[in-house]
């Protein structure tokens, strides 16, 4: 079977189609895949995995205040800009709600960290974190977001923020928008013929 037949077998090109697949195709491959939302069952998923996911989706871990704090933090970590949406616009808080149920070792550091943040905000500015003015919120982040220059007395805040940053990055860069922002253009059938010649040249490699 040649590559063309492979693609037919995948249902990615119709029989007799003259479409030529290239590595830089701009077609969205997702239109060919079955549309799914979280909770839809994919083929190849084991019973226990499906049941476990359904159970997790039916549970709630964070309360409203915690979710609101996560949303504010996520958008401070990955804000909207001219080219890409903010973390909340791509559903990062919902992902974080799911992943702490899925990986329970994240639960206590997240819940306790959120509480630490509110207590610290209360001490410094007399209110919970989400009630503060943006400049007060960022002044707290400036203390905990840069591990190498953070003061020892906020080290627990640094650990919490490292986790929050990690989970926000995972929630963001695994969405369609996050992947578009990064510029990942694979996960589609193509032909790999090596590094484009101009790129090789730019990096000082002469072989093709």
């Amino acid at each position: 079977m040649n590559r063309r037949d492979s693609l037919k077998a995948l249902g990615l090109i119709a029989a007799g189609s003259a479409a030529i697949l290239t590595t830089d195709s701009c077609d969205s491959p997702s239109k060919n895949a079955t549309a799914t939302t979280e909770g839809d069952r994919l083929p190849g998923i084991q019973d226990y995995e499906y049941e476990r996911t359904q159970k997790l989706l039916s549970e709630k871990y964070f309360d409203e205040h915690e979710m609101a704090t996560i949303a504010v933090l996520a958008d401070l970590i990955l804000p909207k800009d001219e080219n890409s949406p903010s973390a909340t616009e791509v559903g990062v808080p919902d992902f974080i709600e799911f992943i702490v149920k899925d990986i329970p070792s994240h639960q206590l550091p997240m819940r306790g960290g959120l509480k630490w943040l509110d207590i610290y905000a209360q001490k410094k500015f007399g209110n919970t974190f989400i009630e503060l003015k943006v400049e007060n919120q960022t002044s707290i982040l400036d203390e905990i977001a840069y591990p190498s220059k953070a003061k020892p007395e906020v080290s627990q805040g640094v650990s919490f923020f490292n986790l929050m940053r990690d989970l926000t990055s995972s929630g963001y860069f695994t969405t369609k928008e996050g992947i578009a922002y990064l510029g990942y253009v694979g996960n589609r059938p193509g032909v790999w013929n090596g590094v484009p010649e101009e790129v090789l040249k730019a990096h000082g490699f002469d072989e093709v």
Partner: protein
Amino acid sequence: MPTFQIKEESTVYDAIVVGSGAGGGMAGYILANAGLKVLMLEAGPFFDPAKDALQLRWPWESPRRGASTTRPFGDFDAAFGGWQIEGEPYSVEKGTEFEWFRARMLGGRTNHWGRISLRMGPDDFKPKDAITDEWPITYDEVKPFYDRVDRMIGIYGTVENLHNEPDGIFLKPPKPRLNEHYIMRGAKKSGVTIIPGRGSVLTEALPGNKDRGTCFYCGQCGRSCKVYGDFSSSSCLVIPAMKTGNLTVIDNAMVREVLSNEEGLATGVSYVNTKDMKEYAVKGKTIILGASACESARLMLNSKSKSHPGGIGNSSGLVGKYLHDSTGASISGFLPQLMDRTRYNEDGVGSVHIYSPWWLGDKKLDFARGYHIEYGGGMHMPSYGTFHGIQNYNHLAPRTDGLPQEAGGYGAALKKDYYRFYGSRVGMAGRGTAIARKENYCEIDPNRVDKFGIPVLKFNYKWSNEEIKQAKHMIDTFQEIMHNMGAVITSNIPGEEQLYGLEAPGKIIHEGGTTRMGNDPKTSVLNKWGQAHDCKNLYVVDAGPFVQQGDKNLTWTILALSMRTAEYILQEKNKLNS
């Protein structure tokens, strides 16, 4: 009151194969194609990559975005199972360690493996240093079978004429990615050989095969391939063998015991259906174990009878002994030259594009044998965890946009950093020879059973100085290559107290040696055909028969030896019939 009943099937199969991975799949394929009536038992469910692969799925199609919560290599990986399986425990002797990976599914671990397909060389079968025992066979005896596996299954690579890294019959290899060009440059400066990878992926149509598709470069072999463009035992051996009409597969069948008669010959096996927990017994003239090195050893040790009081095939007392995995250690970092790089699709193939075969031959070092190096990095599909820990390295690359140059951060500068660093990661991992020792073994735990009531394995495994010093050599070499290619190392450099990053035994998933072959029934379990010395119709075709694996990933050798054993079984049958 419920009654306990064992359902006995009256059919007597020509052969019963336990396990459907590389070894079981190949034996089943050869025997079914030769016209034998074969029954294959698989402990896990049926799995057909064409229907069940999660290939081409996007991270957002997983609620955990590909995290490895239920599957050790991520939510889209093909392996059902892992190092821990609910209700199927194992024990580890105090002061020793072993991690036992099991895939419970048709095709076993071949659905998710790295497809790195290396032949063992002449010196691997007949070592020159006398540190380990010789195999009872030579490379030249196995070569014709390697050749046939190459033609039958397909492998890419290049002819290099290296003494202990024998060439095969190759399809064209994939070209290097950009990070791999940098790696080659660095390795060259370090005097480390790099050659194109050798992988069982169809980079071209496989001559004579109409059932398998050609690779379309998604780089996702680990998810198994819907067009059968790479080697899985399920897609390339078992499913085709079923089409002959001679192979029957029973899935969800966990084999309990090999049954034998008064003369000590195997007569069949008993198994439990893992779905309804009912008990069955089936009869066969020949019994072939391909359940994986440790699972086959466990089954033999659990098959006790009057004629086999220590377990079937175990009159030498060596079943479970000489257990050995590969060594493994790795480091990673990033290439500042690849920051902000031009984007294009470089998914490539899911196996390695380049690798370093052991380049120091039998040079005298402070450890035995050697290792090969596998390389990673590039613009891969993002997944859960891709950018975790960015605060550990984002201050290490100079920035020119005027934003703060600090570790960690948030907001616009951080968002930009994720973009800048994407695709710049690079890493390397060694896979080396671990010495097969009698003192490293698995045995039956006298005090524990699994959920089916089957006694479980207990592992006793310790690394020695040979492996630890080899890991040190790896870490030193990797640092030098990274330096010579201009990379910044971001992983911690493990020292002596961390055994130089040497992974726990079992972690590399190359375990073998538990039913080793040899000419002397006192010092080996099987003869050179994989046939039990003390039970003429019992064979083992997984990595159990390995006397000593080289630094070569063992699947290609399992396939070649299983093919050889299956043809020996056919010859023996023909002798009886003529």
